[in-house]
């Protein structure tokens, strides 16, 4: 199953594929043979294409924390359904937060007409800004979080008024 991560300011889609000799990590067009072995006390031996790395991993809330390459990395795990809704791919009339974050810009107010693709709000999560865009033409029903507010994953952000039945 495809997973979506946010790390170091990028959104990355990853797919783990079982192959006969182990597991492949598919990242776009690249493939890496990967394996992870627990050594205890939060330490793991990670192998990527036959090269061993010493990593430490812990999970908290909506993030996986990894110590690798001499520093710590916070990996946001994105709930794809919520993200899909937020990105406008779904039919829902409320954009939900794909991951916890902060509102850094609000571009619309309730009652304002918007066009499909127009930016409604910009949120920041895990060092990355994400635009919440209108998933259809319509009218803004509610802005659920004001500028500067923090929110959890799946929190409602912006709703459009119900489409007139036509």
């Amino acid at each position, binding site marked *: 199953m495809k997973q979506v991560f946010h790390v170091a300011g990028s959104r990355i889609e990853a797919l*783990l594929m079982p192959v006969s000799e182990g597991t492949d990590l598919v990242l776009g067009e690249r493939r890496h043979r990967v394996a992870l072995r627990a050594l205890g006390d939060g330490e793991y031996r*990670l192998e990527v294409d036959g090269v061993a790395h010493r990593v430490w991993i812990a999970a*908290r809330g909506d993030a996986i924390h990894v110590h690798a390459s001499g520093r710590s990395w916070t*990996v946001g795990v994105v709930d794809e359904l919520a993200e899909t809704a937020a990105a406008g791919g779904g039919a829902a009339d409320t954009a939900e937060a794909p991951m916890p974050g902060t509102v850094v810009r609000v571009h619309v107010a309730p009652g304002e007409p918007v066009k499909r693709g127009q930016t409604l709000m910009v949120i920041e999560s895990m060092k990355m800004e994400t635009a919440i865009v209108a998933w259809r033409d319509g009218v803004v029903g509610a802005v659920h979080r004001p500028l500067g507010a923090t929110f959890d994953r799946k929190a409602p952000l912006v709703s459009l008024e119900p489409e007139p039945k036509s």
Partner: protein
Amino acid sequence: MIEKMPMPIRKVLIANRGEIAVRVAHTLRTLGLQSVVIYHASDTLSLAVREADEAIEIPAATGVAAYLDVEAILAAARRSGADSIHPGYGFLAENADFAAAVDAAGLRFIGPPPEVIRLMGDKIRARECVAQAGFPITPSATENGTASEFVERVSAIGFPVLIKAAAGGGGRGMRIVRSADALEGELEAARREAERSFKDGRVYVERYVERPRHIEVQVLSDRHGTHVHLGERECSVQRRFQKLIEETPSASLDPGERERLCETAVGIARAVGYVNAGTVEFIFAPSGGFHFLEMNTRLQVEHPVTEMVTGLDLVAEQIRVADGERLSFRQGDLPSRGHAIECRICAEDPQQGHTPTTGEVALLRPPTGPGIRFDSGLCSGQRITPAFDSMLAKLVAHGSERGQAIARMRQALRDLVLLGVDHNAAYLERVLAHPAFAAAKLHTHFLEEHREELALPQPSEAERVAVIASAALATRRATLDAPEPYAAMGPWRN
């Protein structure tokens, strides 16, 4: 003159939390003394509570309020039978009224007498006292006479100037003014802010030194009038007027300057009748020459670097002094040996103006190795909230010379595993790796000057793949593998 000490210190209440409470408790254990720590409910599971022999909860609406509650702390001391109180740093450490209340309660305050704390806490009086004793202070003006006379005196100093609060210190409540036009407005704002922050609206103005160095001297004075210094600490690497990296010795002093500086500090300690451990802070202009900045009448956060090069335990020395003992060594008995650096590991985001971060300690593996010391109050599962200071731990590295200390510190910063809250260890490593740091071209705006070179680099492709692979493979597991001790418990079920 010297009061009799009826009984030696046997049981110390630690009126603090976090790493300094743990560190004081550690020395008490080593000395065979009893420790009592106070704590707020939010610190119930803290390392300090675990490490102390006894722990007494101070009920309060907020964490900070508990550690500032003089009456409750004195009651806890009485209840536990403590004979003395160690204030650590911050909270009540430089509160003269608290020190006086401790005395009045028949307990010993492990620090200087209240009148010395009061004198040095009033930055205007402290400067006057130091100047009268013949030591250099920066050109400055205080608010005597009419407002226009004051503005005249300030203008005579020459812009830019710095407005400071009389009751401030430690970089709090400071404003830079670059022209006469802005002076009156800024003075008014500074007075209001000082009144609000310190309940004391008095301010003073001093010359603002551009790109200064901040160097301080550790002094130690017993109750018998003996004053020694334990060398200097270079504390120029700061953000938001707060120290981030400290080291000793300072690479910028030649032996003559060092001696003049340290003797000035001892002279000031003598002039104010100082007792116990204290730190005299100085400002160095790029052109050379130093001026008294302020004196901190308590143990300093960065005291471990001095311990690393002198071999002393400063908390043990504080207790000996409070016990009325004479210093067991004289100036010159303890030559500084090697070089030591401290990095403050903070829950903050260096990419976002060092703003505090929050989280939970999910995994902690302190670095080890020759010359490495890690002082922290952290334990697994601990919530990191904005309720307290953002400092998580202090990482200290000692080496036979500065280059080795830097190399050891860089390695230790890379080895430190601290997951669950974003922190500045990788940033600190970049600072130590910077050529200007290696060349010791330090000043208090070092981090701003080199902001771009110190910015977080893009991860390499290999790093990105390793991190994504770790996350992807970890989420596949039903649980992250339990270590053996837990797994092995199965057969015991009953």
